[in-house]
C-alpha cells in the first residue's frame, strides 16, 4: 500500500489527539523507511525480509512502543504508535505480496498488478482515515471543506502513483 498508510495515521490521530501527526506519519511508513535505509546501506533484501516480514515489523512496533513510552510517559499513545506500525503489515497484505517469516510463505493479494483495484482499496482506507481525522480539527462552519482538501490531495497522490505504476511496470528494484 502506498498513500493508504497515511489513512491509518490520520485515523490514529482521532484515537489519540495528543500524538503529533508527524510522529504518526513516520510510524506508518517505518518499514518503508527501513527499506530505504537498507537499500542505501547496500544490504537490501529483495524479499524485504528485514523490513516487511512479521518478526521485523513486530520488532519495529516494540522498539517504537518503548521509545515513545519512555520519551513521553504516554503508554496509551505508545500503544497507538505500535498499532500504526503493525497496520503497515496488514494494509500491505491487501495490496502487496510480502514475506511472512524466514522460510515462511509470501502473503498478499498483490493488487499492485491491478492499479484500478489498488486505487479503490487505498481510496477506501484514505477516505476512512480522512473522515476520522476531520473530527480532530478545530470547529468550523464548513468542516467538510477541510476534509475534502485532505482527501483530494491524498487521492491525487495515489492516482499519480497508480498511473506511474501502470506506465512503468518494470522499474528495477534496489
Amino acid at each position, binding site marked *: 500500500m*502506498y*498513500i493508504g*498508510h*497515511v489513512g491509518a*495515521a*490520520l485515523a490514529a490521530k482521532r484515537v489519540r489527539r495528543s500524538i503529533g*501527526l*508527524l510522529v504518526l*506519519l*513516520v510510524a506508518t*511508513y517505518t518499514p*518503508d*523507511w527501513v*527499506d*530505504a535505509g537498507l*537499500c*542505501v546501506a*547496500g544490504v*537490501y533484501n529483495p524479499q524485504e525480509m528485514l523490513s516487511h516480514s512479521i518478526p521485523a515489523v513486530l520488532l519495529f512496533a516494540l522498539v517504537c512502543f518503548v521509545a515513545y513510552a519512555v520519551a513521553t510517559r504516554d503508554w496509551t499513545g505508545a500503544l497507538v504508535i505500535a498499532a500504526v506500525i503493525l497496520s503497515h503489515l496488514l494494509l500491505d497484505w491487501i495490496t502487496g505480496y510480502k514475506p511472512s517469516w524466514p522460510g515462511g510463505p509470501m502473503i498478499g493479494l498483490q493488487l499492485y498488478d491491478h492499479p484500478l483495484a489498488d486505487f479503490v482499496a487505498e481510496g477506501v482506507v484514505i477516505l476512512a482515515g480522512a473522515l476520522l481525522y476531520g473530527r480532530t*480539527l*478545530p470547529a468550523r462552519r464548513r468542516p467538510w471543506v*477541510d476534509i475534502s*482538501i*485532505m482527501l483530494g*490531495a*491524498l487521492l491525487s*497522490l495515489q492516482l499519480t*502513483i497508480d498511473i506511474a505504476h501502470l506506465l512503468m511496470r518494470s*522499474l*528495477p*528494484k*534496489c
Partner: protein
Amino acid sequence: MTFEQFPATTSASLLLLAGISADRFLYAFRLIGALLVATLVPLLIDRRFRR
C-alpha cells in the same frame, strides 16, 4: 582514471565509482522521494488547518 579522463565520465559511472549501482540509486531516490512527499503533503495541510 587520470585527471584528463575525469570530465568525460557520466554521472552513472561516477555512481559506480562510488560503489552505488544506478539501479540502487534510482530505487533509493524514488522511495525516499515518495516517502517524503507522502509525509510532507498531509503534514503541511494539517498545519494550515490548525493555524
